[in-house]
């Protein structure tokens, strides 16, 4: 028996003892990375890191300070590159913009030299595979209705990256993952919506089988960009305003008012596009009973999101009978959780 076989046997025994399903789920988001794994208590553990970087001049003093402050960094091309949430916080302190390796849900053509840093973060949050070739399902966006994009390069790049880490990588549609995470009670029949940083993804599924999926290239970043434009501040600052715990039903300042306006506009835009796509009738299933709509994604975390969503939904004549409209209780991590479900069941 080889060392590899021994490792596999130990893992299998461990799985039997703890009933922990193998497999990992990875949400590769424009704003955040999240990796989900089943833990021994029957729950899941999700590791989250912001998908952002900040270059600062490299010197011994800065490096020591970052180490003392437990701020993650990488030395790359002679520069100190602060990674993740810390980069976002530092950018706000210094009034700078973070570097964003992804844009509109896909790898940004302007940030190809950020690949080593992304690989580091993904490796950190995923950890080692528990068996050689352990399943890792990662999310990819669907083709967009409103921009001409191509997910082939994006998907292939992350597939290769994850495979190189020793996993067996599989892609799954982002909104389909929301259905796996949130619509178990409806036998995985309904509409999953993922409001991410770069995109809003939609998927309609019947008994776990995706019938139709697509995206629109607007998300949290679109709100940030517009808020930053009207307020005359960096986007990182706009992101901070958006994420500091506001309620879009009750804005308290001019800044919050701006966020509220663009949130409502985003929700309306997404719903209008979904309606138009559903009405076009191609590949559309017909439902005898109302289906649920599950919303997830970091952009849906803002206070009052689901109430505003319901208000905007009531304004349109939706072509499908709809039952519950709800936001995931774990909106930020629902996609990673759905990927984990797919990985554990070996969905392909």
């Amino acid at each position, binding site marked *: 028996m080889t060392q590899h076989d021994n490792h596999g046997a130990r893992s299998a025994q461990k799985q039997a003892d703890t009933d922990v399903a193998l497999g990992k789920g990875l949400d590769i988001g424009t704003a955040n990375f999240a990796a989900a794994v089943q833990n021994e208590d029957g729950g899941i553990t999700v590791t989250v890191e912001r998908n952002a970087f900040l270059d600062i001049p490299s010197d011994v003093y800065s490096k020591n300070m970052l180490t003392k402050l437990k701020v993650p960094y990488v030395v790359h091309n002679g520069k100190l590159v602060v990674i993740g949430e810390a980069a976002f916080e530092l950018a706000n302190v210094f009034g700078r913009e973070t570097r964003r390796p992804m844009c509109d849900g896909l790898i940004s053509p302007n940030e190809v030299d950020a690949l080593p840093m992304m690989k580091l973060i993904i490796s950190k949050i995923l950890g080692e595979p528990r068996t050689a070739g352990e399943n890792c399902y990662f999310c990819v966006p669907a083709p967009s209705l409103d921009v001409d994009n191509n997910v082939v390069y994006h998907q292939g790049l992350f*597939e290769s990256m994850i495979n190189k880490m020793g996993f067996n990588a599989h892609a799954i549609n982002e909104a389909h993952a929301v259905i796996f995470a949130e619509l178990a009670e409806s036998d995985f029949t309904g509409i999953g919506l993922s409001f991410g940083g770069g995109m809003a993804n939609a998927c309609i599924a019947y008994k776990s089988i995706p019938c139709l999926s697509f995206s629109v290239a607007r998300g949290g970043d679109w709100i940030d960009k517009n808020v930053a434009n009207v307020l005359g501040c960096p986007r990182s600052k706009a992101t901070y305003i958006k994420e500091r715990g506001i309620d879009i039903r009750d804005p308290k300042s001019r800044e919050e008012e701006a966020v509220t306006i663009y949130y409502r506009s985003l929700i309306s835009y997404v719903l209008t596009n979904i309606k138009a796509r559903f009405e076009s009738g191609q590949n559309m299933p017909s439902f005898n009973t109302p289906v649920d709509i599950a919303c997830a994604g970091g952009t849906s975390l803002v206070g009052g999101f689901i109430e505003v969503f319901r208000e905007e939904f009531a304004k349109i004549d939706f072509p499908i009978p709809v039952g519950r409209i709800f936001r995931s209780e774990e909106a930020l991590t629902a996609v990673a959780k759905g990927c984990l479900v797919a990985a554990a*069941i070996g969905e392909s």
Partner: protein
Amino acid sequence: METVNDIRHALSARSRTATLEQLASEGRKRVRLIKAEHVAAMIAAAVHAAVDESGLVSKEEADKLVERSRDEFRSLMRDRQAEVQRLAEVEDLLRARDQEIAALKAQLAGGGAGVAGAAGTASAGTAATAAAAPEISAALEKLAGSLNDRLEKLGRKMGISAAVEGEEVKFDGLFKDTGKSLESNMENIQVKQKAGGGIAANLERLKKLKGGS
């Protein structure tokens, strides 16, 4: 001759029928008679005369036109008769299939009862169906091809189908420089972790849907 018939119909539609007594009561003692053929000939002569006088078409060309029109009419008649014939054949085929279906239904419902009686009809239907078999199989193949295309397109859009993985492009080259270790303090940094609800219920539901234990 068609012209004569047409004229006869036109005359019939635009004239009235009266008995000799009626005519006598109207004070008419004599009437002049003319045959429909003569009227047709007169009309043809009048048309030819008008055409001649117009100088637009020579008499020979006018005759040719008349002849071509007649040929065209006959050709249309033949086509229409052929269509009627085809329609009758299709109706026969449909009747035969209906009879075959009825026989098969009876066979299924009665567990064999009445099969003997229906057998003769069914065999007649089968013969008709056999004639149409190549058309049906071609249509089925076309439908299957169309469905496959649509499924493939759908799978690609979803990003989950074998079709997507089948077109795999190797991007390993992009990471040839990332294998070398970068100076970093990542190994000493704890990343944020969140606890989430379990997935056991989701997995159980999915297994049930898939028909597993």
